């Protein structure tokens, strides 16, 4: 079978690409489009390092075929900041030292943004369960959760950035 021709809006940019059926959205992002911010940690949906938002929903890009992306709007880690203005979640990850090696960080930031878009005022427990699909082996999650809770406060306008 010839390759699929797919049109999608990626980080606000109308984008077209060709892919084979078995290529996942993650394969396409990394190998065809050159957006290597999404990481492959497991390729089985167990680590969350490849998290992206498709049509408003948080998913693992390793568990979606590239050809399914036709007609969708996709946000990857590269599309979270507005120009040189970091998203509050990104800013708080920096301030709280919520990253060590930084490999799980793109997935965690995308997932955290999706959390706060849906639930602006999560409890610590809600944040922990929402992020349970994002493995981090370096931090023990302590500073990650603090960063997310702090970012939520800023986004609710209860605290200056």
């Amino acid at each position, binding site marked *: 079978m010839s390759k699929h021709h797919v049109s999608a809006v990626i980080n606000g940019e109308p984008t077209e690409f060709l892919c*084979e059926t078995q290529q996942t959205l993650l394969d396409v992002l990394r190998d065809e489009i050159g957006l290597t911010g999404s990481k492959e940690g497991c390729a089985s949906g167990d680590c969350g390092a490849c998290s992206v938002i498709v049509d408003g929903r948080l998913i693992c890009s390793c568990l979606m075929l590239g050809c399914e992306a036709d007609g969708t709007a996709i946000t990857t880690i590269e599309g979270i900041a507005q120009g040189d203005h970091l998203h509050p979640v990104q800013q708080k990850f920096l301030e709280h030292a919520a*990253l*060590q090696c930084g*490999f799980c960080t*793109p997935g965690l930031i995308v997932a955290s943004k999706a959390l706060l878009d849906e639930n602006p005022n999560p409890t610590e427990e809600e944040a922990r369960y929402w992020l349970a699909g994002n493995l981090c082996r370096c931090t023990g999650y302590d500073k990650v959760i603090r960063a997310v809770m702090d970012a939520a406060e800023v986004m609710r306008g209860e605290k200056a950035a």
Partner: protein
Amino acid sequence: MNYIPSDLKVVGTRPVRPDGVEKVTGRAQFGADMRMSGMLWGKVLRSPHAHARIISIDASKAEKLPGVRAVVTSKDFPHIASEEAFVGEGPMNFRDLSRNCLAWDKALYEGHAVAAVAASTQAIADAALALIDVKYEVLPHVIDVEDAMKDDAPILHEDLFTAGVTPTPSRPSNIAKVVTFKKGDAEAAFKSADVIVEGRYTTKPVHQAYIEPHACLCSYNADGQVTIYSSSQGHFMVRAYCAKLLGIEIANIRAVAMEIGGGFGGKTLVYLEPVAIALSKKSGRPVKMQMTREDVFRASGPTSGATIEVKLGAKMDGSIVAAREILKYQAGGFPGSPIGPGCMCGFAMYDLPNVDVVGYDVVSNRPKVAAYRAPGAPISSFAVESAMDDLARKLNMDPIALREKNGARNGTKTHYGPTHQNIGFLATLEAAKNHPHWKAPLKPGQGRGIACGFWFNIGGESTAGCHIAEDGSVVATSGSPDIGGSRASIGMMAAEVLGVPAEHVRTVIPDTSSIGFTHVTGGSRVTFATGMAVTQAAERTVEDLKRRAAQIWEIPVEAVEWKDGKAFPAGSNAGAFEPLDLAALAMKAGRTGGPIGFEVSLNAQGAGPGFGVHIADVEVDKETGAVKVLRYTAVQDVGKAIHPSYVEGQIQGGAAQGIGWALNEEYIYDKNGKMDNAGFLDYRVPVASDVPMIEAVMVEVPNPRHPFGARGVGEVPIVPPMAAIANAIRSATGLRMPDLPMSPPKLRAALDAAARTSSA
């Protein structure tokens, strides 16, 4: 020179790390993120058998598949004799390393690399692997460490004879080495003890489980020059090991340190890079390789599983008079478990008059173990700290008081020889005892445990630089790949010496051709050793800047003072000059001697050991055996925290890994010797909802051998958690759980057995 804590302006603060923005925006480049024009994809064929002789490998069909550019086997590698050689990093048996990268005559574990292909696409490479015909003679296998020690066990290496015993054995054995430490006369001393506790403990192999699988891109040029882009804990290590394995001159290899997605010891050796170079040489094209998560579990190093026996004898007042430990560590397919540190670390925290320790390094049909955070110590301490808890209960003594009574202090001679100096164990115990957590009330069904941990910390060879740019901004260079934020601490130390804000210094990690040799990032040595190098480089820079100011002002250099990033005349006698800042001095660099900057290479000595005391609260669901960790406090002697957030991060991350080791993580094998849980679904590392906030308490007992008093901090925190949680479970249930992981089925079975005993 040593800096006075109260004078510090940068060290001890919490600036944003220099590589932070790259990492939160997805721009940081890790091992798998590199591409080169003409690049091929390399893939590895792995043994499906736990133990098999390789009769033949026929790759002719694979080679004919369109798109396949090269196939390699161990025949494409030089034959290396079995000997421990030094290539900068300390002893390594390069024959074993070579055989681990691509099997020679035998596959020693399921997942052992047998052949590799390079093809134009990943799909073609996968298809090619299926076309390689390997004929195996399947051999009996052995997985468990004590089974492997039996006389009738299948032998992995016909040329392996147990070292460390006399007379030298005449029969090959899976026991590679026996290590013994003796102090005093333990046998006699046990007879004088009022109370004896004994236990037999087991641990399972656990994986470092860094989220980034191993990955590299290698290019072998027609002129024999090689470039390696890979994520590792030491790009100089990668360079040296590849050179040795492939017979290439070291200067012909340039290794570039990509960002590394976690290592914890697991990326201190090579798996893919030599294979990728061989494929690149054969195909004439750059070759990219990356492991799948399954490959990572099946073929890269976990740490040892073990069996440990501990016996402690004490007087009624709590003083321990005799201690014995027997440790049997799995090494995997090749010798080299961390049995040495295992034998040393268990009792290193205590002042014990009579000690017997025997350790065994044992091969079996599992992946070759690699270092994992404080290699060897967590296994040994799980056993010893569990036994200490039992001893405290038997003596009806507070577990912290028992440790204070026997705790090592300055002047304590360890059972392995050296006498402790400038250590902070008692201060750490004191801080734990005074922490509100230790006294907080518990609800019924909950339990609290404490346990301690020790790690030597190491120094070693490091290079770092300090360069003043033309506009007076500062570039610091470090030869150490940055796993957890060391660029921040390196830059901060340079900034402190120069008297400028942390943000004024950019820290980078040059490739192996652009900075002096540096040992791997491991053993908690970077902030200590590379930090010492950058401090000296910055100090030389300051001296040079003072000389230049003196030259400009035409006054003696002794009359120049350096403060807050500027040269001042030292007092009114020196003359009335406007201070010269870095920008002003940089502008005049051409007229005062040329570029400003120094690189310092050193072999750092005097890494002070670190101690940790952890307190864990748990709740046990007695019907399911599930353990919930409710509260966790980790107290640690950190010397001086250069960037406290990243010190806390090391402590929190180590503790969380320990919680996983304690409760759920393990390698599970089926009856054919194949790993049954090679993925994040069933190899269960803690997820965010599994752990509570982990309070990191930093006790600062300065290390006088470091200019800012730093000690290594990364290893210690993984040592205490397993026993801390086991002791908390004992407190909640009355049951001693001697086998890791303390998973729900095991705990429920133990609860049921206890109920049967009490009702009988």
